[in-house]
């Protein structure tokens, strides 16, 4: 399954060195894509205006807490807990949320934000 750079949308294969080092555009956040899912999402997200997308991004950063996101570390995401269809419309995957999996917010096609402290909290639990 390929990985896509969040910033420039370039798609890399599983073994690509860019996934470990960072994309040529400087982006270090990738998401794992399932082709079938991508097609579905394309339809809803192409309808969003630039203003909508900006608003969604701001909303998500506020939901997660801006200070929590370390943009220097590559992060690979392979599922979603929360989908934002457009500003003010949210879909929550309760099964993921209840299972205490890391929180991932979908901004738009190819753009996700992950709640890192939740993820690291889980790692800690596992080690203990």
């Amino acid at each position: 399954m390929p990985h896509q750079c969040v910033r420039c949308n370039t798609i890399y294969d599983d073994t690509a060195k860019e996934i470990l080092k960072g994309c040529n555009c400087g982006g270090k956040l990738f998401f794992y894509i399932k082709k079938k899912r991508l097609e579905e999402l394309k339809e809803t997200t192409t309808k969003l205006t630039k203003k909508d997308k900006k608003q969604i991004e701001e909303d998500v950063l506020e939901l997660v807490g801006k200070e929590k996101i370390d943009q220097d570390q590559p992060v690979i995401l392979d599922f979603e807990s929360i989908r934002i269809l457009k500003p003010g419309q949210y879909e929550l995957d309760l099964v993921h949320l209840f299972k205490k999996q890391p929180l991932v917010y979908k901004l738009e096609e190819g753009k996700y934000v992950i709640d890192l402290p939740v993820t690291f909290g889980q790692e800690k639990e596992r080690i203990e």
Partner: protein
Amino acid sequence: MVNWLQRIINRLFRNFFKKKGHVKLGLYGPPNGGKTTLANRICKDWLGEEMGSVSNIAHETREIQIKEEIHIKSDGKELSFNLVDTPGIATKIDYEDFINAGMKETKAKKRAKEATKGVIDAIKWLDEMEVVIVVLDSTKNPYSQVNITMIGNLEARNIPVLVVANKVDLKKSNVKKLEAAFPQYEIVAISAKYGDNIDEFYKSLFKLAG
């Protein structure tokens, strides 16, 4: 193995606190089921003051609310707990629903965002809970994704649960359907708004947490 041990430790820990009488009691459920109305009823009955505001528009409670040190008495026994009222759990939050309920767009979008955060917080807080009261609207279909996921998860976490069938004062109320949906639980039918059958509720609470 680790999970099994963890569960035993959790249960011992929970029992220890139970004996001390400091149970953390959470109110959970879908939006507009009457969690805050019930919280207000409990607080008014035992503290003489209300806990939070209620509204006909869903997602009125968007932040965790805590009332500490509530002491209730029944049949000569006393139970002390901290009451935690949580935001309603939903799978979809749409600002357009709030607009349809008469809200302005900016306010509706803000409410949707806060409600989403509320769902995440409510789920995060589950770890802290020792007893959970699931408040369901008995006029609504109990077989919803929220109800099934939530109750299934509480079971998996071994948290003692009391299911409340609220709004029995309404004509459409169907407690039987709710009982059929969750046969493994004791279900108390009440009207949190008017206090119908509230003594029965306190008795069940004692049985579960006392």
